[in-house]
């Protein structure tokens, strides 16, 4: 098979480039999800706590999500006066997308909690902050983490766009393939690594989910 020998040969020659692209992709794809996740918790709390914030905040996140990613990445340096080649432009753009997804799921997760349980917690003598971390948040986690899975996979796949504005990541392997007259090896390598990265990230979240929400997998038993 000529294709596989091409693939191996390409890897041997461009070993360090591929690794670097993978490392950049990890940074560009995953850092935004982490930031978005952390930010979505207080925002989700606000949406649930102050009902009037729900419509404006969730509408805003839907609107942000509809902005084409390439446009957003190109506009950010203008707004924040960052260098046009700064990878953080992509990180910020993907954080906005991640946030747009996660604020909604965090709010949904927090409002899905049985109010009777929250009431019981209050009646036990929980103060509000401790109660939120000890009762509300854990009970919202199944929904919140499902949202995180979607946001992570979306972010990792969207990170390829960075290559179009000259920033690293696995997307660079695609553009390289096109530049070489649709030469398959870098395209295939980029595609496989990008998908593998999304799958592994998803798997990690599933494992974390299993570990931190054991009560969701129970059936009533004797």
């Amino acid at each position, binding site marked *: 098979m000529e294709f596989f020998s091409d693939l191996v040969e390409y890897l041997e020659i461009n070993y360090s480039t591929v690794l670097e692209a993978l490392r950049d992709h990890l940074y560009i794809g995953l850092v935004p999800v982490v930031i978005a996740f952390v930010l979505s918790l207080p925002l989700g709390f606000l949406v649930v706590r102050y009902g009037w914030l729900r419509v404006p905040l969730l509408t805003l996140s839907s609107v942000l999500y509809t902005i084409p990613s390439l446009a957003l990445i190109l506009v950010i340096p203008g707004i924040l006066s960052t260098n046009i080649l700064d990878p953080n432009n992509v990180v910020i753009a993907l954080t906005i997308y991640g946030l747009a997804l996660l604020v909604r799921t965090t709010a949904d997760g927090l409002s899905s909690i049985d109010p009777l349980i929250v009431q019981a917690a209050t009646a036990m003598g929980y103060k509000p902050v401790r109660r939120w971390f000890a009762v509300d948040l854990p009970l919202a986690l199944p929904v919140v983490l499902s949202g995180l899975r979607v946001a992570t996979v979306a972010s990792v796949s969207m990170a390829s766009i960075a290559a179009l504005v000259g920033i690293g990541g696995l997307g660079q392997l695609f553009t390289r393939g096109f530049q070489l007259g649709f030469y398959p090896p870098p395209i295939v390598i980029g595609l496989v690594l990008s998908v593998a990265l999304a799958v592994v990230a998803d798997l990690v979240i599933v494992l974390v989910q299993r570990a931190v929400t054991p009560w969701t997998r129970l059936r*009533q038993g004797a």
Partner: protein
Amino acid sequence: MIEFDDVVKTFPDGTTAVDHLDLTIPDGAITVLVGPSGCGKTTSLRMINRMIDPTSGQIRIDGKPVGDSDPADLRRGIGYVIQAAGLFPHRTVVDNVATVPILAGTPKKKARAQARELLDRVGLRPELADRYPAQLSGGQQQRVGVARALAADPPVMLMDEPFSAVDPVVRDDLQQEFLRLQGELGKTIVMVTHDIDEAIKLGDHVAVFAEGGKLAQFAPPDQLLADPTGDFVSGFVGRDRGYRGLSFTTAEHLPVEPADTVVEGLRLALDSDGRALGWDGDGQSRLPTEGTFTATDTMRRVTDLAILSPAGAAVRVDGSGRVDGLVRHAVVAEHLRTRQLERLRSHGRSTTGAEG
């Protein structure tokens, strides 16, 4: 002692949930707040641990206004049992029970050890301790709910419809067990229910609320049945209240006739140990006694036996089961009539329904 002193609660939408409530809830007893929905019973309960603050008036526990305490600290000192248990689904049974002690600063290990002891006390098998609430039956969950409320050994316990989410057979078990536990613990318990039968069964005192948040009557259950104040309470207490009230008196003061008395032509046949065999007479076949009672049984049982007896007489036995007397239903009826007359006279009530 929990005192409601002219307590009013008006909600922002203008509805009055509790209307000038004055009520003193005694220590070491079960006080049941009962009434139709929207009568303010749950609001009243929740004002005790400041889940709701009154619009005006004051609530005091042992003389101390609850408004003076930090709500969280106040609540840690008051057990709370909620409808359908309200357990934390993400925590194991033992961690649910250990919640309040851990909040109050007890080391986790110690709190868990105490929680395991409590589970035994409410009749749960130790292997259930490490399960999650979803793995338990409704009745077991409710027991965990009670254990959780008891964990910090609070002197006061509030229970909001604690037995309403379980089926009738389990409910009966839980109620019996609850009364047994209260017999050991002697907590000051305030319970809310919409079920008058539950109120009468469990309460040492029953507060009947009418729509609009007014207290209609506050009395021990036997008095509530024998002497309801006004149409609302008698309507709410329901049918058969005379008969149901018989559960609250024992047969100890009931006069008996000798066991060999011939009643309506029938004579009680005894075996060599003095146990009842049945009623003989007219050379016909022997008729059943339908059971016996002891002096500690309720008047309800005696009345039931007298009605069922072919001789119209209930058979009393001593502790070892030997027959020591007969009671005809005419005697039961006369005994009850005298008792009711005394009760109404002692409360000084007339037919206008004004309370004396």
